[in-house]
């Protein structure tokens, strides 16, 4: 760690020439000598509404098998094509095999029948509500993950990062956020222009632009120092090539580089499986492929992070669940409640949280979907307050008066 910080300092000073280093730059470089290790929250959004009932299989429910004659994952029997039993009631999709180790090590917890109180089955609205953290209210200008950050006088420029081309709804707001499809894109290739802009903006009397540009060049400098170094994941961790794997690889890199990351966001799509959710056999096909990438990415991240997982909690979400009954196209349609994963050192894993409402006809929401028994804000709120230590939960989830804890985290 020490050598990296020295490297940062030297490269920063070299960028401007030692004598010419502006005061603010010297300050920030030296300030980094004693970084505070902050807790980190990573939010993963599965866009398109993943079929939670085939991600975590309620294999003790006869209704699951009755309503899904062709796409149900078989009851656990130890084979590669069946669910992997967790607790006698639920099992992982066989593509999520890589996560069983994390379950056994009690790093991974599962929250069942979780979702939004809003009834919408529109992807757009449901994602919007989950990301703004205010179901039913459309005009909320910012996102829950941005509000989860506390106000600081001198925030680290890379405290909030999204691995996406645009700042996602979850992270929009008054705290600075950097969104990059790939962290290598965050740079100015033209070094002459970079130097000229640095002095132009450093010298302007325009206070807004001057102040922000200072942070811009600091962020560029930090990114440069990271971009230059080859990254080898620890413990032989292998990130899959899909989008989520590559996003998590870069998040791991940022965490290990101690850039002051506090929250990170990544999303992955393809879950809207109306048609051919499974192949001819239930454990194959679109969903199986997506889940393999998903599980392998989470598994690789956890392995790569090693002990640093103590500071990290990763949570996954998707806008709503899918119909319990399969449709005529070997797929499922838009439903209601879903499943979330929480992974990390603070998590009391190896347990399925949430009240299971059952799949009997009279137990279903509107006679067709899994009922919501846990508000998603209960889970996210607990992570914000207990993991991140931001107790101003009423401003992170305004108007939410539901349960504040599900016992998910160690305190």
């Amino acid at each position, binding site marked *: 760690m020490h050598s990296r910080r020295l490297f940062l300092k030297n490269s920063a000073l070299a960028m401007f020439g030692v004598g010419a280093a502006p005061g603010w730059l010297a300050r920030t470089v030296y300030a980094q000598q004693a970084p505070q290790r902050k807790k980190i929250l990573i939010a993963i959004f599965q866009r398109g509404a993943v079929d939670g009932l085939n991600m975590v299989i309620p294999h003790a429910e006869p209704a699951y098998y009755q309503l899904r004659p062709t796409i149900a994952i078989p009851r656990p029997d130890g084979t590669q094509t069946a669910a992997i039993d967790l607790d006698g009631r639920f099992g992982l999709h066989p593509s999520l095999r890589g996560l069983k180790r994390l379950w056994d090590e009690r790093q991974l917890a599962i929250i069942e029948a979780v979702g939004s109180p809003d009834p919408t089955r529109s992807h757009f609205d449901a994602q919007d509500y989950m990301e703004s953290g205010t179901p039913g209210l459309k005009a909320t200008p910012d996102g829950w993950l941005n509000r989860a950050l506390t106000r600081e006088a001198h925030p680290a420029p890379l405290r909030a990062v999204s691995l996406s081309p645009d700042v996602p709804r979850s992270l929009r707001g008054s705290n600075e956020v950097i969104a990059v499809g790939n962290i290598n894109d965050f740079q100015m290739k033209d070094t002459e222009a970079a130097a000229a802009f640095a002095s*132009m903006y450093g010298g*302007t009397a325009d206070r807004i632009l001057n102040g922000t540009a200072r942070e811009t060049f600091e962020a560029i400098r930090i990114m440069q120092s990271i971009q230059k170094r080859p990254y080898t994941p620890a413990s032989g961790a292998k990130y899959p090539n899909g989008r989520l794997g590559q996003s998590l690889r870069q998040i791991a890199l940022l965490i290990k580089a101690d850039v002051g990351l506090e929250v990170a966001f990544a999303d992955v799509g393809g879950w809207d499986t109306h048609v051919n959710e499974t192949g001819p056999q239930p454990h194959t*096909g679109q969903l199986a492929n997506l889940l393999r990438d998903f599980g392998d990415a989470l598994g690789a991240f956890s392995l790569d992070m090693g002990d640093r997982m103590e500071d990290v909690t990763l949570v996954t979400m998707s806008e709503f669940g899918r119909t319990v009954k399969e449709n005529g196209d070997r797929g499922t349609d838009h439903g209601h409640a879903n499943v979330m994963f929480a992974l990390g050192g603070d998590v009391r894993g190896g347990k399925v949280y949430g009240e299971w409402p059952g799949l009997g006809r009279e137990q279903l929401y509107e006679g067709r979907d899994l009922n919501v028994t846990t508000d998603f804000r209960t889970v996210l709120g607990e992570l914000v307050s207990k993991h991140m230590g931001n107790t101003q939960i009423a401003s992170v989830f305004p108007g939410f008066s539901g349960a504040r804890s599900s016992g998910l985290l160690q305190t």
Partner: protein
Amino acid sequence: MRTVGSVAAVALLLGPAFAGGWKIKPIKASANPPRYAAFSRLLPKDERFGHAIEKLTFGARPGDLDEARQMGLEKWLDRELHPERVAENPALGPKLAELESLQMSAREMYLHYPPPQMIAAVARGRANLPEDPELRLVVSRLADRYLQKQDSQAAAGADGQAIGNPNNANDDADLAPRIRLSDILTVEQMETLRSGRPEDKKRLLASIAPEKRLDFVWALRPEQRRQLFTVAPVALRRELMLSVNPQGVVASDLTEAKLLRAIYSNRQLEELLVDFWFNHFNVFLNKGGDRYLTPAYERDAIRPHVFGKFYDLLVATAESPAMLFYLDNWQSVAPTAVGPNPNRNKRGLNENYGRELLELHTLGVDGGYTQKDVIEVARCFTGWTIANPRKGGAFEYNDKVHDKGQKVVLGHVIAAGGGMDDGLEALRILADHPSTAYFISLQLARRFVADDPPPSLVNRMALTFGKTGGDLRAVMQTMLASPEFWSQGAYRAKIKTPFEMVVSAMRATNADVESAFALGNELQKLGEPLYRKAEPTGYSSANAEWVSTAALLERMNFAVALAHNRIPGVVAENADWRTVGSPDFQRK
């Protein structure tokens, strides 16, 4: 800066004195709290020309300042306020004519640029091929491709494309091509595709034989495809897009037209106002049916009214299928009503439109309404719906699901049995409300003057709004006749939005924009993808919204790319990154 208070000049601009008698009393500038002192210091007379151009256009072209000086300020302002009297730039028409969807109805767009759902339906034998022979070919090829994709997906690995992400309109995800790229291109050509300059890529595209183009485009990865689209001439690019993602053509036509008009139109204030009002009454292009409903929304509901009466604008947006879809009112039914399909239609009252109508469109969040008013307003609009909402359908009033009871909106009783007129009556109550006059004036002043405009100005504008029955041209006139507009407080007080910055760069450098497709992509990088603000607030004009660490980097990178002619479709010979990327250029 030295200030010269030219009271006489301002008095001239102010025009006739305002009569009282309305609820809002105008305040003299001197009565503003001390933090507005800069709005009492007038700009030197000579600086007002440049100031007017910065504030009321998308930025000066070379020569614009001299022209304004010759014309005189009053005549110049009058021209901007009466775009119908201004001859349009002859360069604009031919550029817009290439974007064929612009003149179509939403329904025609749906038929000419079908959505993936329609293609899937054809592929699965649940819908017929279109009659039009050309379109028939396009759809049958896409349906073929759809089936091939379904087959290959079972075997192929996950591609990780963000399908289902509302921000990603292009569902043209990866698919193992029938013909591999290496079978079509030489090694050198592959290299050009990977890292060539735009002009080399353009040549590469031109060298592909027409009969091979389709295979070529399908063999590309989505990212390569998007890059190649940026270098193609407009007509060819539209043809190629039509063969992989027809729906995307509607979106790109709309985006490009907005950029082209802003860059080339001689009716600059009108274009600024269309952008302002679109954001005020925001809809989101990528939400379901709005992919086809948005172009007509801007064209038919927003544009004709920006210098008209606020009530007419309000009604046009309320009745527009785009807004009905975006804020879900099309699904809103009286709690007691039963739809044709009881399982799907038991949603009941949907308050989303009612809430945003009060909070964002008219009264403002502090405008003095209650949750009860939201519900009452929502009840007025039950039955305002859309025929075929996802297929470019039109407004329809369905009396069967309308709430027939009496409503009370902001203390006004709307008698039972009013039918569709309940909604119109609610709009009238809202348009006539003093809070609306104030809120609309405030929003205009925030956009055209400064983030925190002085109350004296806003009140004066609100008074005009009230006296003229919401005449938006008169409100703008009042703003332009106010000393606060011509003050140090307003001078360069705003950070340009990315859209304004990009367009002003084109204008300042006299750029030749052959295609604005790449500029649309640049705006996405800069944080303002056009027509894609998901929240009903629309894009904010507040400075804080547009100044962030990442955004500044993108602005600087944009300046460098422009100066090095690396933005396809744009030739800006005089562009200098030192100018376009400078702090000064970010302000207006």
